[in-house]
């Protein structure tokens, strides 16, 4: 109310002030006329008297200004006045205005986007009530966040630090609502999940702790709002309906509110199912086995007054008790708390490092833009030296002129900030709606919020003031009499000016950006041609889970055999095999490996960890993985035969001592199984990160290690869509109720290359921006220096200067600055790309191609930027020019 009143008062005074100004004008005129009357009476002619009266009165504008100050000049009024004047001035020089606003649009846009991503993933708490006090727990030793169900129950019941500890895990399944069975992703949640998070149902009711009465006792489903909206068309009668999930009847209890998208930021489930029922749905989860870790994340609200450190100590003491009671399953480990949403320290550090890098580069863009604008503004101030001098001579105060210049800068920064923010909002909405992996309901929720708007505004204003300050010194030192006397084009400075330094800094920054983007692009290009340990060309992956179609464990192997045979029978298919999870997939299975002599199989005694694949005999051939020694898995390696494995060279080297001695040697798995190595294959890339260190991997026969969720690897010489429909019809012939997900291996690989692709894309865009900024910077400088020296150039031409000499005089300086800046930028860029090596595969800045590319790019930029000013310098017509002055 107060604010409103004060605002109304201010607006009222604004109107009064217009009136007051008119009055003041009239009063001063009246004074001068009275004086003139007196002078006239003393014998002067009227015109002479009036002139004399005006002179005697003194600087009228100055006194008006003083009166305004005496009355208490309203800041709004002066600002509006300045703003109006600034707008007029900016309209008069559209080139300058457009260049400045565009530069700022780029910079603010880039920063707003990067900050919004940072904000969406790290700064914003999960969208649940009191999200600030929500923490996930992880084991301290290896920051392992996945727990076993019995451990979770003990932690939940024994801790004194959390209001409630909830748990969830992400699983997939087949949902049959009477139509075609569809492939779905859902959370298995603890009974207290919704209560612990403090969420209210949108419709019906949520799963409650009282629903859990033992394993497989709660066949209930809570739909997410999005899934209810898209699959059930907002049907409110859906509550109480029974649907089939993996062929088991489940009752729909209710619908979650629209704003709740689960507790993993970038993975929103289709629905929620009680965790105690997962065994029925999946088979492989065992809620009673303490060593079977599958509970994806345990999280809860801290009690009021409990700090994370206290809570961690509390959990650690429980952990110690568990270690005492179950030494075989539970290592002695401490616990720590992490923010939920990014799966603890699993994804967060890499994403954070990447975003920090991006933020740094975006900051560089902003800095370059500011330098660019500083150059523009300094040039403009120099051009306006005459105008400023005139205003000073007419009695305007320096503060007033400075304020007006700053107003101009602020107007430009606001316009640029608004445009930048608008474009970033468009971009962010598209980014939020983007599903990079068709197989998963994943997206990056980065829609901007108030924080983003605020940061953009602050950045825009700050940079506005920053470059607005540049010409201040020029104005403060301006001596009106000198400038008016001499004209503005008198001095052609040969000493190093602020402008030159700004330009060199800017070019250097841009060269850094161009260098890093080239390093990234080159890295990605290389990673496309790296040796993966398999050949993704001409391969179709078919992801099925027999559990979803209700197959019991004893029926799975036979069905898998039928599927493989059916694939091989398709004309054009050269090989088809089965693997539980293909390499470079989003998920992978890591197992502890023990030496043959180890009897105490606790995790701390493991020799190493190896990535584990369960394969059918044909898989290695279908994947084109080269067997180096020994034999492949055969169909005789079945459940009752001795357990065998094919391992990669890294496994042989690291775990069995040597490649040659590895064949025929033995090792053990955590469950005690003794395994003989029968073959050795080439190393490859396994985790979803091409920059991984060499990993040990073992390939176990799927007959000896059953799995129902598998991927068929079908290699053929037919093209994708045709093959896909053939595969689908074959699968339908085998079982029409089995959901399958098909994609080529190259498409699947996009997931593995996701990080590199995103990195390359962002760096590429930033590099492009850097290039554009350096073009505008050099162009501005060259155009300015040519226009300043047009007269001199005209005289030179009139005196018979050759084209080369004219060019040299006109643009030698910008070109020299460009060369210095580029060289500095290149060196810095090469140093900075060490940082890039972290995210970009094989990012090597010492690549001659990269170095050459950068030099070429900068030369091209220089050519483009100086072309028009050079043309203008060459086409100077001395006659016209000399006549003008």
């Amino acid at each position, binding site marked *: 109310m107060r604010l409103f009143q004060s605002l109304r008062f201010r607006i009222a005074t604004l109107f009064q002030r217009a009136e007051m100004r008119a009055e003041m004008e009239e009063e001063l005129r*009246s004074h001068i006329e*009275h004086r003139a009357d007196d002078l006239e009476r003393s014998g002067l002619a009227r015109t002479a008297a009036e002139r004399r009266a005006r002179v005697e009165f*003194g600087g009228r504008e100055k006194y008006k200004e003083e009166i305004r100050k005496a009355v208490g000049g309203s800041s709004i009024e002066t600002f509006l006045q300045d703003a109006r004047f600034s707008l007029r001035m900016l309209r008069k020089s559209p080139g300058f205005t457009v260049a400045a606003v565009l530069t700022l649009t780029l910079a603010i846009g880039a920063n707003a986007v990067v900050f919004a991503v940072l904000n969406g993933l790290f700064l914003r708490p999960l969208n649940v009530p009191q999200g600030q006090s929500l923490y996930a727990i992880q084991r301290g030793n290896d920051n392992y966040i996945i727990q076993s169900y019995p451990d979770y129950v003990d932690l939940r019941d024994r801790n004194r630090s959390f209001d409630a500890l909830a748990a969830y895990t992400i699983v997939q399944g087949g949902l049959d609502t009477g139509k075609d069975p569809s492939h779905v992703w859902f959370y298995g949640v603890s009974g207290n999940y919704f209560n612990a998070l403090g969420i209210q149902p949108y419709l019906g009711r949520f799963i409650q702790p009282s629903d859990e009465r033992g394993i497989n006792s709660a066949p209930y489903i809570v739909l997410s709002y999005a899934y209810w909206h898209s699959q059930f068309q907002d049907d409110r009668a859906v509550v109480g309906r029974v649907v089939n999930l993996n062929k088991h009847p489940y009752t729909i209890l209710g619908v979650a509110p629209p704003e709740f998208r689960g507790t993993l930021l970038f993975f929103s489930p289709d629905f929620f199912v009680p965790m105690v029922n997962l065994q029925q749905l999946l088979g492989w989860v065992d809620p009673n086995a303490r060593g079977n870790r599958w509970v994806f994340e345990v999280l809860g609200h801290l009690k009021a007054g409990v700090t994370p450190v206290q809570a961690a100590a509390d959990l650690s003491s429980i952990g110690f008790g568990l270690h005492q009671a179950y030494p075989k399953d539970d290592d002695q480990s401490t616990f720590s708390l992490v923010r939920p949403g990014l799966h603890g320290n699993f994804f967060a550090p890499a994403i954070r490092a990447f975003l920090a890098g991006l933020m740094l580069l975006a900051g560089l863009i902003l800095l370059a833009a500011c330098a660019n604008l500083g150059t523009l503004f300094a040039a403009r101030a120099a051009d306006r030296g005459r105008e400023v001098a005139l205003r000073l001579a007419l009695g305007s105060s320096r503060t007033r002129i400075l304020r007006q210049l700053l107003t101009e800068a602020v107007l430009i920064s606001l316009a640029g900030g608004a445009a930048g923010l608008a474009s970033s909002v468009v971009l962010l909405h598209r980014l939020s709606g983007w599903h990079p992996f068709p197989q998963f309901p994943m997206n990056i929720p980065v829609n901007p919020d108030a924080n983003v708007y605020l940061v953009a505004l602050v950045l825009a204003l700050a940079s506005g003031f920053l470059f607005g300050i540049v010409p201040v010194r020029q104005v403060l030192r301006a001596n009106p009499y000198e400038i008016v006397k001499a004209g503005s084009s008198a001095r052609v400075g040969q000493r190093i000016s602020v402008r030159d330094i700004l330009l060199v800094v800017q070019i250097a920054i841009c060269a850094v950006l161009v260098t890093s983007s080239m390093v990234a692009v080159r890295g990605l290009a290389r990673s496309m041609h790296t040796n993966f340990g398999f050949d993704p060309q001409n391969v179709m992956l078919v992801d099925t889970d027999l559990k979803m179609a209700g197959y019991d464990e004893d029926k799975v192997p036979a069905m898998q055999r039928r599927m493989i045979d059916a694939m091989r029978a398709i004309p054009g298919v050269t090989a088809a095999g089965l693997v539980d999870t293909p390499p470079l997939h989003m998920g992978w299975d890591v197992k502890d490996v023990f030496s043959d002599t180890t009897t105490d199989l606790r995790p701390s005694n493991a020799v190493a960890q190896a990535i584990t694949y369960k394969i059918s005999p044909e898989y290695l051939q279908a994947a084109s993985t080269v067997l180096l020694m020994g034999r492949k898995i055969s169909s005789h390696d079945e459940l009752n035969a001795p357990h065998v494995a094919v391992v990669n060279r890294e496994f042989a080297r690291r775990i069995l001592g040597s490649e040659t001695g590895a064949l025929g040697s033995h090792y053990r798995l955590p469950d005690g199984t003794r395994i003989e190595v029968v073959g050795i294959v080439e190393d490859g890339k396994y985790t979803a990160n091409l920059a991984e260190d060499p990993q040990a991997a073992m390939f176990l026969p799927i007959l000896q290690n059953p799995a129902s969720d598998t991927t068929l690897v079908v290699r053929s010489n037919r093209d994708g869509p045709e093959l896909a429909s053939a595969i689908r019809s074959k699968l339908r012939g085998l079982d029409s109720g089995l959901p399958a997900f098909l994609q080529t291996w190259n498409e699947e690989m996009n997931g593995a290359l996701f990080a590199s692709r995103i990195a390359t894309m962002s760096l590429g865009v930033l590099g492009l921006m850097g290039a554009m900024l350096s073009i505008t910077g050099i162009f501005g400088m060259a155009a300015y220096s040519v226009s300043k020296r047009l007269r001199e150039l005209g005289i030179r031409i009139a005196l018979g200067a050759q084209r080369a000499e004219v060019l040299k005089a006109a643009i030698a300086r910008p070109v020299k600055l460009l060369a210095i800046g580029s060289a500095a930028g290149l060196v810095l860029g090469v140093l900075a790309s060490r940082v890039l090596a972290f995210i970009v595969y094989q990012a090597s800045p010492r690549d001659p191609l990269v170095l050459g590319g950068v030099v070429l790019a900068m030369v091209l930029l220089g050519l483009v930027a100086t072309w028009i000013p050079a043309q203008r310098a060459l086409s100077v017509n001395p006659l016209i020019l000399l006549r003008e002055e």
Partner: protein
Amino acid sequence: MTDQAQLLPGTLDLLILRAVSLGPLHGYGVLLRIGQISANALLIEQGALYPGLFRLVRQGLLKANWGTSENNRRAKFYELTVAGRKRLQEETDSWNRLAAAITAALSQQPEEV
């Protein structure tokens, strides 16, 4: 012109109040009145009067009304408010004290110290 004295900072407002206290005046009239009562001994740039006038109006010491001057021109006339009259009295007293003190200090002879 050279025998005219520069105004001390802050004294212009006092002079304006004094000039207006003798009857309502417009701006040019204030200037003439000051010249008259100070025997033209003070150097005042004409325009400098107005910031002072506006300031005094804003402080509520003067009030202003538009009227017609003796030259038959529209002009703004200033007169003292009650607060203005009181302020004039205070300022005059304080000026007299200051002036007396300064005069006394300056007229001391060496032997009297």
